[in-house]
């Protein structure tokens, strides 16, 4: 008895409890906390979105459903590959397990890459939340017009700061374009509702509702990316808030999983690691499930 203290791990027995390893139970408990975390975020999105007076269609905010669907496909593939890694590890085929983990890692990186591409596209169009306010306006009102005017003036000042003798031909063209925009009736002394709307559509035409025919005409911001004029996206601010928050936290979870997969590549993934792979697999499937809900909610609704 007196020596029992030196070898606790072998001698201690516990009351029979759940027939699963501690790690797996802990992972499942952790996943239930994660359910609540995403429930708060997704719940917020749903009440804000369906309570909003107007919400942009996905094309109005340059969201591409095929890209989203491709990402869904990528995540589903990675779920399969991680489950195959688990099978291989259980069968003690360490090499195969490592191969599948590497596949999962590659698919996860691909997912994040696509995500980064999408984010970049939004940023390029000026669709992002920002303090004190972003380039997005909810409606074509006088605040919007004055913001456009300010931007034009800032651009002019920037070009003119080079000095009259240093202006290149490109600068001249730019100044000319700015003058043309400044002559828009909406920026004149008394703009009408219709002219303001026209200006907004001229800067960035809105996309089409699902089912309608696509009509591609580029706006000023698309034709001249250096302009970066303020844009009007009704409901766009809350759209950007929720979209970037939801996908951002999902991407962080993906990133967390990828770090573990990367660490796994340095280990020997034989049967001894099967439990560990199962746990990280559970986490990975959960991340997949979150995306399964996010994809239709954000892209297709």
């Amino acid at each position, binding site marked *: 008895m007196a020596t029992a203290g030196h070898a606790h791990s072998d001698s201690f027995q516990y009351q029979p409890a759940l027939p699963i390893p501690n790690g797996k139970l802990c992972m499942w408990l952790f996943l239930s906390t994660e359910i609540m975390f995403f429930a708060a975020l997704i719940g917020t999105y749903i009440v804000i979105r369906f309570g909003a007076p107007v919400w942009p269609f996905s094309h109005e905010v340059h969201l591409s459903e095929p890209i989203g669907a491709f990402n869904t496909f990528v995540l589903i593939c990675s779920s399969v590959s991680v489950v195959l890694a688990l099978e291989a590890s259980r069968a003690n085929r360490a090499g195969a397990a490592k191969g599948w983990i590497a596949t999962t890692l590659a698919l996860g990186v691909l997912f994040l890459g696509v995500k980064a591409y999408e984010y970049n596209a939004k940023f390029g169009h000026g669709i992002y939340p920002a303090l004190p306010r972003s380039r997005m306006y909810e409606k074509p009102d006088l605040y919007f017009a004055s913001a456009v005017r300010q931007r034009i003036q800032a651009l002019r000042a920037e070009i003119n700061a080079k000095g009259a003798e240093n202006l290149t031909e490109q600068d001249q063209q730019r100044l000319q374009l700015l003058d043309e925009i400044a002559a828009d009736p909406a920026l004149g002394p008394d703009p009408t509702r219709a002219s303001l709307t026209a200006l907004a559509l001229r800067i960035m035409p809105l996309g089409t509702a699902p089912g309608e025919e696509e009509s591609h005409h580029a706006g000023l911001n698309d034709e001249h990316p250096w302009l970066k004029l303020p844009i009007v996206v009704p409901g766009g601010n809350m759209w950007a808030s929720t979209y970037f928050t939801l996908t951002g936290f999902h991407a962080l979870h993906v990133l967390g999983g990828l770090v573990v997969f990367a660490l796994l590549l340095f280990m020997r993934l034989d049967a001894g690691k099967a439990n560990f792979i199962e746990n990280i697999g559970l986490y990975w499937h*959960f991340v997949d499930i979150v995306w399964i809900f996010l994809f239709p909610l954000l892209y297709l609704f």
Partner: protein
Amino acid sequence: MSANASGETVVDPHAAEHGIGKYIAVFVALIVLTGASFFTYSSLWPFHDEPAVGRLFMMAVSCTKATLVMLFFMHLKWEANWKYVLTVPPAIMAIFIMLALVPDIGLRYRIASPKRRAFMAEPLDVASVEAGSHAADNGDQQHETGGEH
């Protein structure tokens, strides 16, 4: 231990070990279901006028997909009853918190102040612009965007 593992009714947690074919089947099902969500976008989808139908359909598809992932990839199909204890309460609470937010947040414009209404987003009145631009502003606009019209 898992020699008789092909049947789906076996409660042995190791039953899944040789079921790679099963994973492939689930994988195919998930791809098909993702496609089904997209079906609401096709011209064959009969409920374009009622977006709620499409949304319900997509949520049903998502729930099916999530269930498939949980049952097979996360092995819940072969687990004992603890799976209900761990998954059902958070699911109920997740739905509950969403519902509790509806009266105040989902209906937040019900008691919106005049100031809020003045700044509230509203759909762009594209029709009025088109009517106007074809009549008067057409000449002005042609220079920049005329090529597209």
